[in-house]
């Protein structure tokens, strides 16, 4: 199904994608942290600090609360594994990656859901109030962001007659005017809101808080330590990187390799790194500028995203 692409090139691209996400995820988080610190007048840790943290944590002892079952230890593995599969099949570097024909946007959404469900189960397994609190809030926000996400996916898929990501990307490369249509812009905003909600960034969740009443994501992973914590942190940063890369792919597709040449691939690597870094910086600047929303205001934000997504689909039909 990979057409005229040589097997070697496809394999190399897949390996590059996976490695890029594994290394790039923590770097992205480091970059965003650095930008935030600078804007707040602090020097901040170096950009590669998250990688150093991971190395340190990976060698430390793993712990498990008395009451927890095997689920607790399996969760970090599932979280990272599902993200790895997404990194493998998504067309981050080339329009025709190894399993491109199966890179269905809906399937990717459901794979992300596996990771979210696993995290919530692990949190409940700790048998503490914090775990339950985080799981309950995260699942509520997840459930409410799902409609906006899937309808935004639909808005992107309708003009391409397919929910296959490589097809959508290839089509936006051949029809650049399509990127400026109202449905694109509307679904862009909806997508962005959902990414912020799904990856637990401000204004939905503050990733650097440890205040009991406001924690969502952090409350779920409080009990992890050592290598498990390393995996959880890696998984989170990979999810953020994959989401931003997918976003870049869908809305700013230029640079994605359309042919198997080495030049194409180099351009693609540089382009995706630049795009994700730019998005990360933009997100960090935005995070400095806004305050966290009250938990019960978040549904309004997500409902707004859903309305934008529906408008995007409707305008896709009115303005073909």
């Amino acid at each position, binding site marked *: 199904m990979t057409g005229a692409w040589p097997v070697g090139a496809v394999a190399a691209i897949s390996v590059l994608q996976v490695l890029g996400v594994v290394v790039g995820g923590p770097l992205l988080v480091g970059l965003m942290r650095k930008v935030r610190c600078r804007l707040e007048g602090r020097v901040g840790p170096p950009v590669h600090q998250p990688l150093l943290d991971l190395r340190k944590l990976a*060698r430390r002892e793993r712990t498990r609360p008395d009451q927890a079952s095997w689920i607790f230890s399996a969760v970090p593995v599932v979280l*990272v*594994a599902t993200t790895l599969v997404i990194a493998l099949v998504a067309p981050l570097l080339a329009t025709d990656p190894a399993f491109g024909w199966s890179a269905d946007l809906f*399937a990717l959404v459901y794979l992300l859901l596996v990771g979210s469900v696993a995290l919530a189960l692990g949190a409940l397994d700790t048998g503490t109030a914090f775990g*339950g609190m985080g799981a309950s809030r995260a699942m509520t926000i997840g459930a409410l962001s799902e409609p906006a996400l899937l309808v935004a996916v639909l808005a992107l898929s*309708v003009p391409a*007659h397919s929910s296959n990501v490589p097809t959508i990307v290839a089509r936006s490369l051949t029809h650049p005017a399509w990127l400026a249509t109202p449905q694109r812009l509307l679904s862009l905003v909806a997508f962005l809101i959902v990414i912020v909600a799904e990856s637990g960034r401000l204004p939905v969740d503050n990733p650097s808080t440890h205040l009991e009443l406001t924690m969502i994501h952090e409350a779920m992973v409080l009990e992890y330590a050592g290598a498990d914590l390393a995996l959880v942190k890696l998984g989170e940063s990979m999810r953020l990187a994959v989401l931003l890369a997918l976003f870049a792919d869908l809305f700013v597709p230029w640079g994605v390799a359309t042919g198997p040449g080495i030049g194409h691939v180099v351009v693609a690597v540089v382009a995706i790194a630049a795009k994700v870094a730019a998005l990360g910086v933009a997100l960090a600047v935005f995070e400095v500028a806004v305050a966290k929303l009250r938990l019960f205001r978040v549904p309004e934000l997500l409902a707004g995203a859903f309305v934008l997504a*529906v408008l995007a689909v409707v305008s896709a039909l009115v303005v073909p």
Partner: protein
Amino acid sequence: MTADLLVATTLIGLAAAAAGAAAPERLRTPLVSALTAAACGCGLAMALGVLSSGRAAVVHTGRLLPLGGLSLALDRFGALFVAVSAVVAVCAMVFRLGYDGHGLSSRTASCVLPLFVTALLLVPAAANVTTFLFVWELMAVSSLLLVLVDHRRRPEVAVAGQWYAVMTQLGAAALLAGLVLLATHAGSQSFAAITARSAGLPAWVRSLAFVLAVVGFGSKAGMVPLHVWLPRAHPEAPGPVSALMSAAMVNLGIYGIVRVGDGLLGGGPAWWWLLVMGLGALSALFGSLHAATSTDLKRLLAYSTTDNMGLVLLGVGVSGLFASTGHPSLALVALVAALLHVVFHAVFKGSLFLSAGAIQQATGTRDLDRLGGLLQRLPVTGSLFLVGAGAIAALPPLCGFVSEWLLLQALLHGLPSSDPWLAIVLPVGVGVLALTGGLTALTFVKAAGIGLLGQPRGAPAAEASEVRPSMWVGGGVLATLCLVLGVAPLLVLPSVLEAARTVTGSQLPDPLVRGWQFGLLGARGALAPGLLAIGLLVAVVLVAGTRWALQRAAVRRTEAWGCGRELQTARMQYTATSFGEPLTRVFEDVLTPAHDLDVSHVAESRYYVEAATFHTSLDDAFERHGYRHAASGLAWWGGVARRVPNGSVHRYLAFGLVALVVVLVVLG
């Protein structure tokens, strides 16, 4: 050959019922279970024979029933439902060997259970109106008796039975009216003749018959607003019976709507299908919302049945809408997606209800707020429940994901359409599907996370121990199917496709790409569930291996962080109620929760609290606003009517005279 099997299924089923009535108590349960399972085995063989050969199994005898006689003809569409019911019933029978309590081994229950299973297998085979109504009522009455087996010990069972009896009989009345209307206008009561002549019937007859069928069958499928019996009756029934009701009986509601709408009437105008879609969307949202906020394990599962049948109805409605707007190929895809979801729902819901029955047997409670920590105490049952929960939450690579994906594809590919109805309805359909999916994930994180993980919240959960192996086998087969069908949906997809083609009479070529991947023909992109599963497995092994290589020391058991408190008790954990609380608050307008906080103070000072009780409840809005008013209206009317016959003989004689005059006037 298949006709012989049809006769054998019926006879063995009746023999099982006779054995239940006659066998001594010691032998009763194994004998009845074995005979019923044998009947299901015959039924499954027959269904597979019909599905593979395409030749209907026909049995006709003029004697056994009045009017049209007993007429059975099982085509591929019916065979799909027979196969599903048979598999669920065999698992329920194996499960039943280990299940005690709930009075299921009494003489009455042992006699009625095989009748219920036999009726489940015969409904899709009925080929004329009399036979259909006979087996349908047999199914309704026998399931009602099975719900009621425990009514002496628990008063709530009797209440559930009343709701079920009223709703099922109202539904049956609607069916009787609808089918008789069709039969009289078509001039024959055989389904084949009605199918042949229905196109020439007046439009109002067709529409009225369809609406009556939607009401009658919809109430059986748990369609909102006719669902009120379902969250009461399914939880109160004994474990294996709730599995049969929720995984097999509700499917027959879908069977009926498709059989009448697509089969007997051969499709209809767009508004029929918009009605079905609307009711399906309402059921999906309402069911998933209530499932997400329920704290009773089996009630939660029952609401989730309403939710899933709603999704199926959404698919059926979309399919009809496609057909009526000139997209026959997409109509077939949507119908296949809906039927696939029926099959998969039966598998995972059967597994979940059987595991829930085992949990109830082990702990004596279904209240999630008192469970917890069961995965370590019931490792097998707990794992089976987890698999079922993953499947219903549509997590790849389990089976629920495949049917939802296919339904989404059907909705997506219908969209670049010039038809305004489709343009409005399809995005809303995707939104409903997505919100339902999100809420279902929340529901089953709650069910599994609160019920199975963490610390036990009460003595019943803390002292629970693993149930008998026969109960694992029953649930285990279905849980295995969740995984197998999720990885290899093509095992059942061709049969589902043939079933959909049979009922719609469609001659279209196969609209699906098939191979080790599947998708829609002509659309780029497909799904390869098998490869996805392999990819996930490889990734899990890779990550786990890396973690092991980096840190080989055993995991140290520690105390969970208690926020600096000395004491961390199980009561500090989140409960099912608190887990659903944010959602309850978000959907306050729909759920209208009632809170009741009662604080009593110490006599000496108002500043010291002596005791506080908090009570919270969530009523079904339809029950509170619709049914309670209807019931009180009926009671009022009954009170009025009671004044008329006051015991005076003169008055009764006058009634007789008036009636005679009226009859003479009308006839004259």
